[in-house]
Protein backbone atom coordinates (compact mmCIF):
# COMPACT_ATOMS: atom_id res chain seq x y z
CA UNK A 1 0.00 0.00 0.00
CA UNK A 2 3.01 2.29 -0.09
CA UNK A 3 1.86 3.62 -3.44
CA UNK A 4 -1.50 4.68 -2.05
CA UNK A 5 0.19 6.86 0.52
CA UNK A 6 1.63 9.01 -2.24
CA UNK A 7 -1.67 10.83 -2.49
CA UNK A 8 -1.54 13.92 -4.60
CA UNK A 9 1.16 12.62 -6.90
CA UNK A 10 0.08 13.05 -10.49
CA UNK A 11 1.18 11.31 -13.64
CA UNK A 12 2.74 13.58 -16.20
CA UNK A 13 1.58 13.89 -19.79
CA UNK A 14 4.82 12.19 -20.77
CA UNK A 15 3.98 9.07 -18.79
CA UNK A 16 3.88 5.86 -20.86
CA UNK A 17 0.58 5.22 -22.58
CA UNK A 18 1.14 1.48 -22.74
CA UNK A 19 1.76 -1.16 -20.10
CA UNK A 20 3.17 -4.64 -19.99
CA UNK A 21 3.27 -7.37 -17.35
CA UNK A 22 3.11 -11.16 -17.18
CA UNK A 23 0.03 -12.82 -18.63
CA UNK A 24 -1.61 -14.91 -15.93
CA UNK A 25 -4.71 -16.37 -17.53
CA UNK A 26 -4.56 -19.99 -18.62
CA UNK A 27 -5.84 -21.54 -21.83
CA UNK A 28 -9.02 -22.54 -20.00
CA UNK A 29 -9.55 -19.05 -18.59
CA UNK A 30 -9.04 -17.39 -21.97
CA UNK A 31 -11.45 -19.89 -23.50
CA UNK A 32 -13.95 -19.11 -20.73
CA UNK A 33 -13.74 -15.44 -21.68
CA UNK A 34 -14.51 -16.40 -25.27
CA UNK A 35 -17.54 -18.38 -24.06
CA UNK A 36 -18.92 -15.78 -21.62
CA UNK A 37 -17.69 -12.44 -22.93
CA UNK A 38 -16.75 -11.18 -19.50
CA UNK A 39 -14.48 -11.84 -16.54
CA UNK A 40 -15.30 -10.72 -12.98
CA UNK A 41 -12.43 -10.04 -10.58
CA UNK A 42 -13.89 -9.60 -7.10
CA UNK A 43 -12.39 -7.27 -4.52
CA UNK A 44 -9.03 -6.81 -6.21
CA UNK A 45 -8.64 -3.09 -5.45
CA UNK A 46 -7.52 -2.18 -1.90
CA UNK A 47 -10.14 -0.65 0.41
CA UNK A 48 -8.17 2.58 0.79
CA UNK A 49 -8.12 3.08 -2.97
CA UNK A 50 -11.86 2.38 -3.13
CA UNK A 51 -12.45 5.10 -0.56
CA UNK A 52 -10.19 7.52 -2.45
CA UNK A 53 -12.03 6.74 -5.66
CA UNK A 54 -15.45 7.34 -4.11
CA UNK A 55 -14.20 10.59 -2.56
CA UNK A 56 -12.79 11.65 -5.93
CA UNK A 57 -16.12 10.95 -7.65
CA UNK A 58 -17.97 12.91 -4.97
CA UNK A 59 -15.75 15.89 -5.81
CA UNK A 60 -15.78 15.39 -9.58
CA UNK A 61 -19.28 14.20 -10.36
CA UNK A 62 -19.01 14.91 -14.09
CA UNK A 63 -19.97 11.87 -16.15
CA UNK A 64 -16.45 11.76 -17.55
CA UNK A 65 -14.04 12.31 -14.62
CA UNK A 66 -11.08 11.62 -16.87
CA UNK A 67 -8.65 13.52 -14.66
CA UNK A 68 -8.75 10.63 -12.18
CA UNK A 69 -6.46 8.82 -14.61
CA UNK A 70 -3.71 11.29 -13.75
CA UNK A 71 -3.77 10.29 -10.07
CA UNK A 72 -0.84 8.03 -9.32
CA UNK A 73 -2.77 5.99 -6.72
CA UNK A 74 -5.53 5.33 -9.25
CA UNK A 75 -3.07 4.43 -11.98
CA UNK A 76 -1.18 1.98 -9.79
CA UNK A 77 -4.03 0.27 -7.99
CA UNK A 78 -6.88 0.41 -10.50
CA UNK A 79 -5.64 0.91 -14.05
CA UNK A 80 -2.48 -1.17 -13.58
CA UNK A 81 -3.87 -3.29 -10.77
CA UNK A 82 -1.87 -6.54 -11.00
CA UNK A 83 -4.88 -8.85 -11.19
CA UNK A 84 -6.55 -6.70 -13.83
CA UNK A 85 -3.48 -5.85 -15.88
CA UNK A 86 -2.32 -9.45 -16.06
CA UNK A 87 -5.78 -10.47 -17.29
CA UNK A 88 -5.84 -7.65 -19.84
CA UNK A 89 -2.31 -8.63 -20.88
CA UNK A 90 -3.52 -12.20 -21.44
CA UNK A 91 -6.37 -11.08 -23.68
CA UNK A 92 -4.83 -8.10 -25.50
CA UNK A 93 -1.19 -9.10 -25.70
CA UNK A 94 1.94 -7.24 -24.64
CA UNK A 95 2.28 -3.47 -24.35
CA UNK A 96 -1.47 -2.90 -24.35
CA UNK A 97 -2.67 0.69 -24.57
CA UNK A 98 -3.93 2.27 -21.38
CA UNK A 99 -7.25 4.10 -20.96
CA UNK A 100 -7.39 7.75 -21.98
CA UNK A 101 -11.02 8.34 -21.05
CA UNK A 102 -12.92 7.66 -17.83
CA UNK A 103 -16.70 7.48 -17.65
CA UNK A 104 -18.74 7.22 -14.48
CA UNK A 105 -22.28 5.84 -14.42
CA UNK A 106 -23.03 7.66 -11.17
CA UNK A 107 -26.64 7.40 -10.06
CA UNK A 108 -28.47 8.05 -6.81
CA UNK A 109 -30.46 4.97 -5.78
CA UNK A 110 -33.26 4.01 -5.85
CA UNK A 111 -33.56 3.93 -9.63
CA UNK A 112 -35.17 1.86 -12.39
CA UNK A 113 -33.41 -0.55 -14.68
CA UNK A 114 -32.32 0.82 -18.03
CA UNK A 115 -33.02 -0.95 -21.30
CA UNK A 116 -30.87 -3.76 -22.61
CA UNK A 117 -28.33 -2.52 -25.13
CA UNK A 118 -24.97 -2.92 -26.76
CA UNK A 119 -22.78 0.15 -26.53
CA UNK A 120 -22.36 2.25 -29.66
CA UNK A 121 -19.76 1.65 -32.36
CA UNK A 122 -19.75 -2.06 -31.63
CA UNK A 123 -18.06 -4.50 -33.97
CA UNK A 124 -19.32 -8.06 -33.78
CA UNK A 125 -16.76 -10.65 -34.82
CA UNK A 126 -14.03 -12.96 -33.55
CA UNK A 127 -11.48 -10.22 -33.09
CA UNK A 128 -10.68 -8.93 -29.61
CA UNK A 129 -8.81 -5.68 -30.08
CA UNK A 130 -10.14 -3.81 -27.07
CA UNK A 131 -11.77 -4.41 -23.71
CA UNK A 132 -14.36 -2.40 -21.83
CA UNK A 133 -13.74 -2.55 -18.10
CA UNK A 134 -16.01 -1.62 -15.17
CA UNK A 135 -14.84 -0.81 -11.65
CA UNK A 136 -17.15 -0.82 -8.60
CA UNK A 137 -15.50 1.41 -5.99
CA UNK A 138 -18.28 0.70 -3.48
CA UNK A 139 -20.12 -2.47 -2.52
CA UNK A 140 -22.66 -3.17 -5.24
CA UNK A 141 -25.22 -5.67 -3.96
CA UNK A 142 -28.40 -6.44 -5.84
CA UNK A 143 -30.21 -3.56 -4.15
CA UNK A 144 -27.75 -1.07 -5.67
CA UNK A 145 -28.52 -1.90 -9.29
CA UNK A 146 -25.44 -3.76 -10.45
CA UNK A 147 -24.89 -3.98 -14.18
CA UNK A 148 -26.53 -7.04 -15.69
CA UNK A 149 -24.98 -8.92 -18.58
CA UNK A 150 -26.16 -11.73 -20.83
CA UNK A 151 -23.29 -14.25 -20.80
CA UNK A 152 -22.23 -15.19 -24.31
CA UNK A 153 -24.26 -12.45 -25.99
CA UNK A 154 -21.10 -10.92 -27.47
CA UNK A 155 -21.47 -13.72 -30.04
CA UNK A 156 -24.98 -12.67 -31.13
CA UNK A 157 -25.50 -9.64 -33.31
CA UNK A 158 -28.03 -7.07 -32.24
CA UNK A 159 -28.70 -3.38 -32.42
CA UNK A 160 -29.38 -1.31 -29.33
CA UNK A 161 -32.49 0.21 -30.89
CA UNK A 162 -33.90 -3.25 -31.63
CA UNK A 163 -33.56 -4.20 -27.97
CA UNK A 164 -35.73 -1.44 -26.55
CA UNK A 165 -38.67 -3.71 -25.76
CA UNK A 166 -36.68 -6.39 -23.92
CA UNK A 167 -36.97 -6.72 -20.15
CA UNK A 168 -36.47 -10.26 -18.82
CA UNK A 169 -33.79 -12.38 -20.54
CA UNK A 170 -33.18 -15.93 -19.33
CA UNK A 171 -29.57 -16.43 -18.27
CA UNK A 172 -28.88 -12.74 -17.61
CA UNK A 173 -26.87 -12.21 -14.44
CA UNK A 174 -26.32 -9.22 -12.16
CA UNK A 175 -22.66 -8.42 -11.52
CA UNK A 176 -23.16 -8.29 -7.76
CA UNK A 177 -19.75 -7.63 -6.25
CA UNK A 178 -17.96 -6.20 -3.23
CA UNK A 179 -16.13 -2.87 -3.35
CA UNK A 180 -12.96 -3.04 -5.40
CA UNK A 181 -14.33 -5.43 -7.96
CA UNK A 182 -13.55 -5.06 -11.63
CA UNK A 183 -15.18 -6.77 -14.55
CA UNK A 184 -13.65 -7.03 -17.96
CA UNK A 185 -15.97 -7.33 -20.97
CA UNK A 186 -16.04 -7.88 -24.68
CA UNK A 187 -17.40 -4.52 -25.82
CA UNK A 188 -20.40 -5.87 -27.70
CA UNK A 189 -21.83 -7.86 -24.79
CA UNK A 190 -25.52 -7.13 -24.12
CA UNK A 191 -25.93 -5.35 -20.80
CA UNK A 192 -28.03 -2.91 -18.81
CA UNK A 193 -28.16 -1.16 -15.46
CA UNK A 194 -30.23 -3.18 -13.01
CA UNK A 195 -33.00 -1.79 -10.84
CA UNK A 196 -31.88 -0.42 -7.47
CA UNK A 197 -34.23 -0.60 -4.50
CA UNK A 198 -31.67 0.57 -1.93
CA UNK A 199 -30.58 4.10 -1.11
CA UNK A 200 -27.27 5.81 -1.73
CA UNK A 201 -24.90 6.84 -4.50
CA UNK A 202 -23.71 4.20 -6.90
CA UNK A 203 -20.56 4.89 -8.94
CA UNK A 204 -19.51 2.65 -11.79
CA UNK A 205 -16.30 3.68 -13.48
CA UNK A 206 -15.88 2.53 -17.06
CA UNK A 207 -12.80 2.62 -19.27
CA UNK A 208 -11.01 0.98 -22.16
CA UNK A 209 -7.80 -0.85 -23.00
CA UNK A 210 -6.58 -1.50 -26.57
CA UNK A 211 -4.41 -4.09 -28.27
CA UNK A 212 -1.19 -2.85 -29.87
CA UNK A 213 0.35 -6.16 -30.95
CA UNK A 214 -0.93 -9.04 -33.09
CA UNK A 215 -2.69 -11.76 -31.13
CA UNK A 216 -0.70 -14.79 -29.98
CA UNK A 217 -1.10 -17.67 -27.56
CA UNK A 218 1.28 -16.10 -25.07
CA UNK A 219 -0.76 -16.60 -21.91
CA UNK A 220 -0.23 -19.63 -19.64
CA UNK A 221 -0.34 -22.67 -21.91
CA UNK A 222 -1.75 -25.80 -20.31
CA UNK A 223 0.18 -28.89 -21.31
CA UNK A 224 -2.92 -31.04 -21.44
CA UNK A 225 -5.09 -28.50 -23.26
CA UNK A 226 -6.50 -30.30 -26.30
CA UNK A 227 -7.98 -28.17 -29.08
CA UNK A 228 -9.61 -31.31 -30.50
CA UNK A 229 -11.67 -32.30 -27.47
CA UNK A 230 -12.07 -29.19 -25.35
CA UNK A 231 -15.67 -28.00 -24.92
CA UNK A 232 -16.31 -24.77 -26.83
CA UNK A 233 -19.90 -24.49 -25.58
CA UNK A 234 -21.27 -21.09 -24.55
CA UNK A 235 -24.16 -20.14 -22.26
CA UNK A 236 -25.76 -18.38 -25.24
CA UNK A 237 -26.35 -21.73 -26.96
CA UNK A 238 -30.09 -21.73 -26.23
CA UNK A 239 -30.81 -18.71 -28.41
CA UNK A 240 -28.78 -19.64 -31.48
CA UNK A 241 -28.83 -22.52 -33.95
CA UNK A 242 -27.43 -25.77 -32.57
CA UNK A 243 -23.60 -25.73 -32.31
CA UNK A 244 -23.39 -22.19 -33.70
CA UNK A 245 -22.11 -20.91 -30.36
CA UNK A 246 -19.40 -23.60 -30.24
CA UNK A 247 -18.23 -22.51 -33.68
CA UNK A 248 -18.18 -18.84 -32.73
CA UNK A 249 -16.25 -19.54 -29.53
CA UNK A 250 -13.69 -21.71 -31.33
CA UNK A 251 -13.18 -19.04 -33.98
CA UNK A 252 -12.65 -16.33 -31.34
CA UNK A 253 -10.23 -18.54 -29.40
CA UNK A 254 -8.19 -19.32 -32.51
CA UNK A 255 -8.13 -15.62 -33.35
CA UNK A 256 -6.70 -14.91 -29.90
CA UNK A 257 -4.14 -17.68 -30.46
CA UNK A 258 -3.02 -15.89 -33.62
CA UNK A 259 -4.31 -18.80 -35.69
CA UNK A 260 -7.42 -17.32 -37.26
CA UNK A 261 -6.16 -18.07 -40.76
CA UNK A 262 -6.29 -21.76 -39.84
CA UNK A 263 -9.85 -21.66 -38.55
CA UNK A 264 -12.27 -23.70 -40.58
CA UNK A 265 -15.76 -25.09 -40.24
CA UNK A 266 -16.28 -27.94 -42.68
CA UNK A 267 -19.88 -28.47 -41.65
CA UNK A 268 -21.77 -31.43 -40.28
CA UNK A 269 -20.10 -33.25 -37.42
CA UNK A 270 -16.65 -31.78 -38.06
CA UNK A 271 -14.55 -29.86 -35.54
CA UNK A 272 -15.31 -27.92 -33.34
CA UNK A 273 -18.60 -29.66 -32.57
CA UNK A 274 -18.63 -31.52 -29.25
CA UNK A 275 -18.82 -35.30 -29.70
CA UNK A 276 -17.57 -38.62 -28.36
CA UNK A 277 -15.30 -39.56 -31.27
CA UNK A 278 -12.93 -42.45 -31.81
CA UNK A 279 -10.16 -40.21 -33.07
CA UNK A 280 -9.21 -36.69 -34.08
CA UNK A 281 -12.22 -34.71 -35.28
CA UNK A 282 -12.49 -34.23 -39.01
CA UNK A 283 -11.64 -30.66 -39.85
CA UNK A 284 -9.34 -29.98 -36.90
CA UNK A 285 -6.87 -27.41 -38.23
CA UNK A 286 -3.40 -28.87 -38.59
CA UNK A 287 -0.85 -27.97 -35.98
CA UNK A 288 -3.28 -27.45 -33.14
Amino acid at each position, binding site marked *: MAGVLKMGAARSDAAPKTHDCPATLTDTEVLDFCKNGYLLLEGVVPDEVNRLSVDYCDQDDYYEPTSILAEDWFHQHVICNPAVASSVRSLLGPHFHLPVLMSNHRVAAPFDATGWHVDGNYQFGPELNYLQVFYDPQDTPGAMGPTQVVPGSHLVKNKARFMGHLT*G*IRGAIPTIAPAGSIFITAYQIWHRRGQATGKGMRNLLKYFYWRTQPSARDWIVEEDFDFATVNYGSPIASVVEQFRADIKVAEMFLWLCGRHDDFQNLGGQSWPLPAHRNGAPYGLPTGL
Partner: protein
Amino acid sequence: MTSAQNQIAARLEGDFAAGQLSADGLRAALEALLQDTARRQDLLYLHATSTAPSASVVAMTLVEGGAIVAPPDDPDDWPYQSALDAINDGWRVISFPNMALLALSADDPHGLGFEFILEKWS
Protein backbone atom coordinates in the same frame (compact mmCIF):
# COMPACT_ATOMS: atom_id res chain seq x y z
CA MET B 1 -57.35 -9.25 -12.81
CA THR B 2 -54.53 -6.89 -13.80
CA SER B 3 -51.44 -6.46 -11.64
CA ALA B 4 -52.86 -3.21 -10.25
CA GLN B 5 -56.17 -4.88 -9.42
CA ASN B 6 -54.34 -7.77 -7.82
CA GLN B 7 -52.38 -5.35 -5.65
CA ILE B 8 -55.56 -3.70 -4.47
CA ALA B 9 -57.14 -7.07 -3.73
CA ALA B 10 -54.04 -8.22 -1.85
CA ARG B 11 -54.09 -5.06 0.25
CA LEU B 12 -57.76 -5.65 1.10
CA GLU B 13 -57.08 -9.28 1.98
CA GLY B 14 -54.18 -8.25 4.21
CA ASP B 15 -56.23 -5.65 6.03
CA PHE B 16 -59.10 -8.12 6.42
CA ALA B 17 -56.84 -10.85 7.77
CA ALA B 18 -55.35 -8.41 10.25
CA GLY B 19 -58.79 -7.26 11.37
CA GLN B 20 -58.00 -3.76 10.13
CA LEU B 21 -60.41 -3.49 7.21
CA SER B 22 -62.48 -0.37 7.79
CA ALA B 23 -65.48 0.94 5.88
CA ASP B 24 -63.37 3.85 4.66
CA GLY B 25 -60.60 1.49 3.54
CA LEU B 26 -63.07 -0.70 1.68
CA ARG B 27 -64.63 2.31 -0.02
CA ALA B 28 -61.21 3.67 -1.06
CA ALA B 29 -60.25 0.32 -2.53
CA LEU B 30 -63.51 0.04 -4.45
CA GLU B 31 -63.00 3.53 -5.86
CA ALA B 32 -59.48 2.60 -6.93
CA LEU B 33 -60.81 -0.54 -8.61
CA LEU B 34 -63.52 1.39 -10.45
CA GLN B 35 -60.98 3.96 -11.66
CA ASP B 36 -58.93 1.10 -13.10
CA THR B 37 -61.63 -0.04 -15.49
CA ALA B 38 -60.52 1.85 -18.60
CA ARG B 39 -59.92 -0.83 -21.21
CA ARG B 40 -56.42 -0.98 -22.59
CA GLN B 41 -54.47 -3.25 -24.87
CA ASP B 42 -52.00 -5.39 -22.92
CA LEU B 43 -48.99 -6.71 -24.81
CA LEU B 44 -46.85 -9.74 -24.19
CA TYR B 45 -43.57 -10.25 -26.04
CA LEU B 46 -42.28 -13.80 -25.78
CA HIS B 47 -38.97 -14.79 -27.34
CA ALA B 48 -38.84 -18.54 -27.86
CA THR B 49 -36.16 -21.01 -28.86
CA SER B 50 -37.97 -21.85 -32.11
CA THR B 51 -41.07 -21.01 -34.15
CA ALA B 52 -43.07 -23.64 -32.28
CA PRO B 53 -45.74 -22.17 -29.98
CA SER B 54 -44.68 -24.78 -27.44
CA ALA B 55 -40.99 -23.76 -27.53
CA SER B 56 -39.40 -22.56 -24.30
CA VAL B 57 -39.32 -18.84 -23.63
CA VAL B 58 -35.88 -17.19 -23.36
CA ALA B 59 -37.04 -13.61 -22.90
CA MET B 60 -40.25 -11.77 -22.14
CA THR B 61 -41.75 -8.34 -21.73
CA LEU B 62 -45.21 -7.57 -20.36
CA VAL B 63 -47.07 -4.31 -20.98
CA GLU B 64 -50.16 -4.32 -18.79
CA GLY B 65 -52.54 -1.62 -17.72
CA GLY B 66 -50.63 0.95 -19.72
CA ALA B 67 -47.29 0.25 -18.07
CA ILE B 68 -44.30 -2.02 -18.51
CA VAL B 69 -44.36 -4.65 -15.76
CA ALA B 70 -40.96 -5.95 -14.73
CA PRO B 71 -40.94 -9.75 -14.80
CA PRO B 72 -39.74 -11.83 -11.82
CA ASP B 73 -35.95 -12.07 -11.62
CA ASP B 74 -36.07 -15.86 -11.84
CA PRO B 75 -37.20 -16.95 -15.33
CA ASP B 76 -38.77 -20.03 -13.79
CA ASP B 77 -41.24 -17.66 -12.12
CA TRP B 78 -42.24 -15.92 -15.35
CA PRO B 79 -45.99 -16.17 -15.93
CA TYR B 80 -45.61 -18.18 -19.14
CA GLN B 81 -42.92 -20.64 -20.19
CA SER B 82 -44.16 -20.85 -23.79
CA ALA B 83 -46.41 -18.96 -26.18
CA LEU B 84 -48.84 -21.86 -25.91
CA ASP B 85 -49.10 -21.32 -22.15
CA ALA B 86 -50.08 -17.71 -22.82
CA ILE B 87 -52.58 -18.66 -25.53
CA ASN B 88 -54.22 -21.07 -23.11
CA ASP B 89 -54.53 -18.19 -20.67
CA GLY B 90 -56.47 -16.07 -23.15
CA TRP B 91 -53.71 -14.18 -24.95
CA ARG B 92 -54.10 -13.73 -28.72
CA VAL B 93 -51.08 -13.90 -31.01
CA ILE B 94 -50.86 -10.76 -33.14
CA SER B 95 -47.37 -11.30 -34.57
CA PHE B 96 -45.52 -14.51 -35.33
CA PRO B 97 -41.74 -14.94 -35.49
CA ASN B 98 -40.35 -13.04 -38.46
CA MET B 99 -39.14 -15.44 -41.13
CA ALA B 100 -36.98 -12.67 -42.60
CA LEU B 101 -34.37 -13.88 -40.14
CA LEU B 102 -33.93 -16.86 -42.46
CA ALA B 103 -32.45 -14.52 -45.03
CA LEU B 104 -29.56 -13.71 -42.74
CA SER B 105 -26.31 -15.65 -42.77
CA ALA B 106 -26.39 -18.89 -40.82
CA ASP B 107 -22.95 -17.94 -39.54
CA ASP B 108 -24.21 -14.81 -37.83
CA PRO B 109 -26.84 -15.25 -35.13
CA HIS B 110 -29.02 -12.17 -34.75
CA GLY B 111 -31.02 -11.13 -31.72
CA LEU B 112 -33.24 -13.43 -29.74
CA GLY B 113 -34.85 -14.75 -32.87
CA PHE B 114 -38.33 -16.13 -32.45
CA GLU B 115 -40.56 -13.39 -31.13
CA PHE B 116 -44.26 -13.95 -30.55
CA ILE B 117 -46.25 -10.81 -29.76
CA LEU B 118 -49.58 -11.40 -28.03
CA GLU B 119 -52.36 -9.13 -26.87
CA LYS B 120 -55.18 -9.08 -24.39
CA TRP B 121 -57.70 -6.39 -23.51
CA SER B 122 -58.12 -5.61 -19.88
